[in-house]
C-alpha cells in the first residue's frame, strides 16, 4: 500500500499514513487499532465478544449496485436478522458494522472516512463487492475518479468478492466476521441437517 498513482488519480493511502504515524510513535488523534478495555478478564472478554458478534448492527451504507443485494439480505428470504443484525442503523453513532457496498470515488472518500471516524469502537468494516475491494470493473487505465479499494481509506476486516455478491455471500462474510471476533465460526452450536438448503 502507499500512494496510488495511476493516470490522473493520486490518492494518498489513509491507512498507510496512520500506520506510519504509529510507527513513528506519534500520538495521533485517529484510532486505527483499538487497544481494548483497560481491565482484562478472560471470561468477561469472551462473553462480551460473543454478545458483540451476535448483534452486529450494520450501518446503511449502500453506494451502488451491491446496496440492493444488501437490502435483499435484510428482507424476508435471506433474513440477516436471524444472525443478530436486527436493524440497519442509518446513523454511524449507533452502529458497529460498516458494510461498504459499492464504489467509492474521490468525492465520496471524505464522507467514508468521516463516517468511519464517527462510529464508536469496537467497530468492523466489511468491504462488499469488487468495487470496494479493489475498484472492480472501474479500475481501468483511464481511471480518474474511482478509489481502487476502500482499504486505501479505512481498515477492512472482511472482503466479500462478487459483482454483486449474492446475499448468501455477504452472509458468509458476516459469519467470517463473527469467527474473527469470537474465534469460533458460529458461536452457538447448531444441529446439523443434511438436506437443508444452504440458506
Amino acid at each position, binding site marked *: 500500500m502507499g500512494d496510488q498513482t495511476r493516470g490522473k488519480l493520486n490518492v494518498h493511502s489513509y491507512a498507510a499514513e496512520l500506520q506510519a504515524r504509529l510507527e513513528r510513535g506519534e500520538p495521533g488523534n485517529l484510532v486505527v487499532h483499538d487497544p481494548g478495555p483497560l481491565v482484562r478478564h478472560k471470561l468477561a472478554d469472551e462473553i462480551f465478544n460473543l454478545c458483540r458478534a451476535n448483534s452486529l448492527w450494520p450501518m446503511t451504507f449502500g453506494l451502488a*449496485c451491491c446496496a440492493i443485494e444488501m437490502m*435483499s439480505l435484510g428482507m424476508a428470504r435471506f433474513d440477516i436478522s436471524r444472525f443478530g443484525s436486527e436493524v440497519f442503523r442509518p446513523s454511524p453513532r449507533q452502529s458497529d458494522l460498516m458494510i461498504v457496498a459499492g464504489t467509492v470515488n474521490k468525492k465520496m472518500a471524505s464522507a467514508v472516512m468521516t463516517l468511519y471516524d464517527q462510529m464508536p469502537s469496537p467497530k468492523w468494516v466489511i468491504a462488499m463487492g469488487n468495487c470496494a475491494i479493489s475498484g472492480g470493473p472501474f479500475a481501468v487505465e483511464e481511471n480518474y475518479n474511482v478509489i481502487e479499494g476502500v482499504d486505501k481509506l479505512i481498515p477492512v476486516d472482511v472482503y466479500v468478492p462478487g459483482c454483486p455478491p449474492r446475499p448468501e455471500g455477504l452472509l458468509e462474510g458476516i459469519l467470517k466476521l463473527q469467527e474473527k471476533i469470537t474465534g469460533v465460526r458460529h458461536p452457538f452450536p447448531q444441529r446439523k441437517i443434511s438436506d437443508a438448503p444452504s440458506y
Partner: protein
Amino acid sequence: MKIAVENNRNRADLVPAQDVPLDNHYYLNMGPQHPSTHGVLRVLLEMDGEYVVEAQPVLGYGHRMQEKMAEHKNWMAFMPNTGRMDYAAALPYNHGFVALFERLCGIEVPARAEYIRVITSELNRIVSHHLWLGAFLLDLGAFTPILYTFDDREQVLDILEDVTGSRLTYCYFRVGGVCRDIDDKFVERTRAFIKRQRERFEVYNKLVTGNIIFIKRAEGVGVISADMAMRYGVTGPVLRGSGIAYDIRKNEPYSIYPQLDFEIPTGTNGDSLDRYMVRLQEIEQSLRIIEQALDQLPKGPCLGKVPKKLKLPNGDGSFAVEAARGELTYYLVSGGGEIPYRLKIRVPSYSNLSVLPELGRGILLADLVTSMGSMDLVIPEIDR
C-alpha cells in the same frame, strides 16, 4: 402556512445562497449517506423551520466514468458497464446499447431473440417497480410493504437468474440477439408468476392504496405540471403521472412492441399519488405484454450472425428505449473501427431529478422526501 419565497430570482436561477441566510434560515445537509435507498444523493437544503426554502442536489458521489470507458472499449467489453448504470432495471440499458450497434451496422436480429428481449425487459421492469414500491413506502415510514415487494422480486429474480446468470446487473443481450435461449421451464415459471402477481395486486391495494395515511401523505404532494415537465425534459412514469401519454414503446416503437397490445396508464394531477398509481398499472400492463409475447413466441435461433469484429460506420446515431424510469437514449459517434469515438448516455433520472430545485421551493421537508421517492431515482445512473 406556506412562507412566501422571494421571487426576484428567475426560475432557472438556482444559485445556492452565497450570502448570509436570513435570521431564521439554516442549512441542512441531506446525504450523501442517508436512509433512503436511492443511492448517494446529497441535497443541500436551505430551511426555514420545517419548510424548504431551496433544495439544491449535489451530484457526483457515484460518478464512475462510464462515458470515458466507452471510448476505450469495444461493444463486448462495454456490455457489463451497461448493466451497472441502472442496476435495478439493467436489461433495457443492455437493449438500447446493442440495438444501437445493430441499427448502425445493419445486423439482423432473429424474431425469437426479439421476443426474448421484450419478455425479459418487461420482467425487469416489474422487478424495478417492485423495488421502487418497497423503497418509496419505506421512505414514508411503512416498514411492511417492502417485505412483500422484495418477496415478489425474488420470484422473478429466480426466473431470470436461470437464464441470464445474474440477479441484478445483467449482461444478457448481445449484438444480434441474446446469449442464451429460454426453455419450457422458463415459460412455465413465468406463467405461474403472472398468475401469482395478479393475485398480489389485491394485497397491495388492501395494504397500501386505500390506506388513509398514505393518501394524505401522497395526494397533492410534489405536483409537476405538464408545462414544467416539458421545460425539464421529464420522461417516464413521472411524466405520465402529469397526464402526458409519452412512451417510447408507443411513440417510436422498436423491437416487437408494434405487434403487442397494451395501454399507457396516465394520471391527472401530477402528484405523488398519481405517479404511484401509474406505476402499479404499468406492472399490470407489463404482465399483459409478457403474456402476449409468450403466446406469440416463435421458434428459431436466439442469436443472429454477427461478424467477429463489428465495424461501425463513419457517422453518428442514436437509439431510444423505454427504461423503467423513463426515456433512455444512447448517442454514438464513430469514426470507423470497433471502438466508439463518443458515447453519450442520456438517462431518465437525470432530467427527472433536475426538477427538484423548482419543485422544492416552499414545501415541507417530509413532502420533499415523498416527492423524491415518487420520482424513482437511481443515483449511479444519474452520475454514470
